[in-house]
């Protein structure tokens, strides 16, 4: 029931927000997201030692149930979602949006979808939430986005929708192979998938994986991402990059690796190679970007590439690293976007060639930028490091015969990451302020938001044990 509440609260609050038709929607959104955070925290405690699950029948004729399950990975991602959303709302508290009720309504609906994805233990339910998370984002981007928002968002939607449909085909195929009443439950799907002969697994693998690959995104499927991030309003960009891309990775871990082991084994090298190409490629592209949002977008692709590479390297520590890094990357990139949006609000541009001197004009913001950037390049004692170290370790210990090569090439991302991140810091924070309007430093709500982010960055950077313990069990399940 607790798990149902986690999804239900933002869902109902979202619907209610639509009906409010007043500024109060913002308050409602904050309240609901805080309540959700509370419940998620409670659920995390409950699920810390043993997974919690909940199940009632839903569409018996299909064999689909309303089953939710919270293990370490789910609660961790729910926690991330539950933290990021209020932080976003807090940070944007002073910003006026057109029609706040629908804006926040959509935000909450998307949150409900995300939480549902992370919690669902039934393939059909999973697909439902997968799309529920997407649709509001489509509206958010198209309605409140930048100049080219309509075609860009549309492309994003169609792109991810194609992936989703392929996944749907895969799910249906697997479900059609099951026997017994709960055709769509995770267990049935997993058994059906494992029972498939290797050649079929190899085909079904791509059906399912393509959706995740687009969502993450992995190298050749990524072109929707920079455009979308660039055109979306920043709160939505945060939802997209901090949470939605995690959906892809989460789905790989939950719905792909255990389900199609032979398919995964067959394609893992391919995926790792794509991921690694993605790391280097995205990093190189990030270097030449002048738009802050595009830069962060490519940086996100690079980071996700590392995670997906580790996901397919089938090593325990790599899996564990992904768990940690999913959370940490979510936090870091949230911080990054918050700063980017503040920059845009204050200086009215994201073009780095026109920026500079933040350290003089708004030193607090500059400090936050530096800290978050450092976390982004995985400096030790920031949260980014733990995850990245474990990911590299996982990649290194991978089963592939080329694991060392993979790791070293992926490691180039570390260097290139430093190049573009420091470039960004230099171009925005440093330099002269002569031609810049002197802007206000952080306001109280922005300060609070960034404080939470930076607090998490530092605390988890120094003492990652809670996060590690939380997800150790599921990592062990994935790769013993």
């Amino acid at each position, binding site marked *: 029931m607790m798990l149902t509440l986690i999804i239900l609260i933002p869902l109902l609050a979202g619907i209610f927000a639509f009906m409010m038709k007043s500024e109060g929607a913002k308050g409602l959104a904050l309240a609901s997201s805080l309540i959700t955070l509370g419940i998620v925290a409670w659920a995390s405690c409950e699920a810390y030692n043993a997974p919690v699950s909940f199940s009632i029948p839903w569409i018996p004729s299909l064999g689909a149930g309303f089953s939710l399950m919270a293990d370490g990975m789910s609660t961790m991602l729910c926690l991330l979602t539950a933290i990021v959303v209020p932080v976003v709302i807090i940070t944007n508290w002073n910003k006026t949006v057109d029609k706040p009720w629908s804006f926040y309504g959509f935000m909450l609906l998307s949150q409900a979808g995300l939480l549902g994805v992370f919690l669902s233990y039934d393939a059909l339910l999973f697909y439902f939430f997968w799309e529920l998370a997407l649709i509001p984002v489509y509206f958010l981007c198209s309605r409140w986005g930048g100049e080219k928002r309509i075609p860009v968002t549309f492309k994003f939607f169609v792109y991810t929708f194609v992936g989703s*449909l392929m996944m749907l085909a895969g799910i249906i195929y697997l479900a059609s192979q099951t026997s017994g009443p709960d055709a769509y439950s995770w267990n049935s799907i997993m058994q059906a998938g494992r029972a498939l002969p290797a050649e079929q697994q190899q085909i079904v693998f791509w059906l399912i994986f393509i959706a995740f690959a687009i969502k993450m995104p992995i190298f050749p499927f990524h072109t929707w991402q920079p455009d979308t991030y660039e055109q979306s309003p920043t709160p939505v960009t945060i939802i997209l990059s901090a949470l939605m891309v995690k959906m892809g990775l989460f789905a790989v871990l939950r719905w792909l690796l255990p389900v199609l082991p032979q398919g995964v084994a067959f394609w893992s090298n391919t995926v790792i190679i794509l991921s690694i190409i993605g790391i280097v490629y995205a990093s190189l592209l990030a270097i030449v970007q002048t738009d802050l949002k595009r830069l962060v977008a490519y940086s996100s692709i690079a980071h996700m590439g590392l995670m997906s590479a580790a996901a397919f390297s089938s090593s325990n520590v790599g899996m564990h690293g992904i768990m940690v890094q999913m959370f940490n990357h979510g936090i870091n990139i949230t911080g990054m976007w918050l700063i980017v949006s503040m920059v845009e609000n204050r200086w009215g541009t994201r073009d780095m060639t026109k920026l500079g001197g933040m350290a003089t004009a708004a030193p607090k913001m500059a400090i936050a930028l530096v800290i978050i950037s450092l976390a982004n390049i995985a400096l030790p004692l920031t949260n980014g490091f733990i995850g990245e170290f474990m990911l590299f370790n996982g990649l290194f210990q991978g089963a592939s015969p080329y694991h060392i090569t993979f790791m070293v090439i992926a490691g180039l991302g570390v260097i290139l990451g430093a190049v573009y991140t420091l470039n960004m810091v230099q171009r925005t924070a440093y330099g002269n302020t002569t031609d810049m309007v002197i802007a206000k430093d952080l306001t109280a709500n922005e300060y609070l938001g960034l404080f939470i982010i930076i607090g998490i960055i530092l605390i988890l950077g120094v003492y990652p044990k809670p996060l590690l313990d939380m997800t150790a069990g599921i990592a062990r399940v994935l790769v013993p």
Partner: protein
Amino acid sequence: MKAIIAATIFGILMMFASILMKDKKAMANLAIASLLVLFGINIWDLISTPAGSSQAYFNNMLSISYYGQMFNTLMTGCTLLYALLVSKEIQRVGAHVAEYFALIFFILCGVYLLSGYNNLLMLFIGIEIMSIPQYILAGSDKRNLKSSEAALKYFLMGSFSTGILLMGITLLYGATGTFSIAGLAFLQSGTISMMAVAGILFVMMALAFKVSAAPMHMWTPDVYDGAPTPFTAYMATVVKAAAFVAFLHLFTYSFGNVSHTWLLVLSVITALTLFVGNVTAVFQQSVKRMLAYSSIAQAGFMLFAVLASNTMAAQQGMIIYAVAYSVATIGIFAVLMKMKDYTYDGFNGLAQKEPLLAFVATIFILSLAGIPLTGGFMAKYYVVMAAVQTGQLMWLVIFGLLMAAISVYYYFRVIIAMYFKQGNAELSSPVTSGDKFMLILTCLLVILLGIAPQLFLVNI
């Protein structure tokens, strides 16, 4: 059976009403009341039909199963919904309001026959009962040349397809010596004669015409486009669904055993339908015409159910699809009829002007596009599921899903126009609170179908 009689009587009643009553509105209200009664009678029939059984009438001419009765009930419900949503627009089509409703009752009569026919003759008569009123309805807007053109086109091609159907039936009779559905079921794969195969293919082509499947779809865009919009809405929904149920019925009970003879041809038809429907819709400028093509595309998906006719999921999927598609299409047509300009540009900025109209239209569009949480998704899900379960149509499923992705392109253009474009969407008539209530109801129905399709599949 009660429903068939009742539908006929109500039809005749409407004919008398046209003589006795002067007020268009009263006629419409009478029709709606009659439909309500008819709906009630259907429910009564449904309740009195034991699940899983079927009741045979008149020397096995008609055999109404629980499934068929369920379908009848739901289609009557859709018709009721339709009448409630667009009765005002029907009144605006022409002078003969009562006649239009009478024709709708007769169509319903045909629908009932098609859901339970047990003889090819009944199939033929049912289809004709459904078709002839449609020819008339298509041409009912006499002020409009397009309407007449649509009627003539529809009529010529429809008669042509009747010829095809009859040739098929004849060949089947020649091969088996019977017109009975059950009799045809004795067709065995090992001994099937070429004549029977030819018969099956002819019948398939004729039915493909009725459900507007490629390559027999050519009439659809023009007729849907030219016919008065309220009647297009009806043709595209209930009538088409009934044709599909007839299609499914025949191919399940009669030709199910010999599916190897027709599966390939039908899969090609399905693929072609999906392709033509979705791809052609992309370039349309008029929403109405786009919806015509989209109905072809939707037919492609419904054909999945026919392809997988032997599975339980196909039967269920057909019901869900028929209802979900009908409700959403009726809904979107109801919105469309409120618009002055049927082009995409006519929708520009609707969300600013009429948020509710835009919102419900969005839900209907999402349903048509097959986005989860709406009935359209569940419908597609069931039929795709059925196709996958046959084990040999995976390629078609993937192709279909890719085409569904294309469908997003033209469906979402409506949403984009309504929400994200600036413009002054002009309405043809003000949206009353009654309209709003009905639209919201329809919208809720769509969502209910999307999250709890089980409710519509009781005992099936």
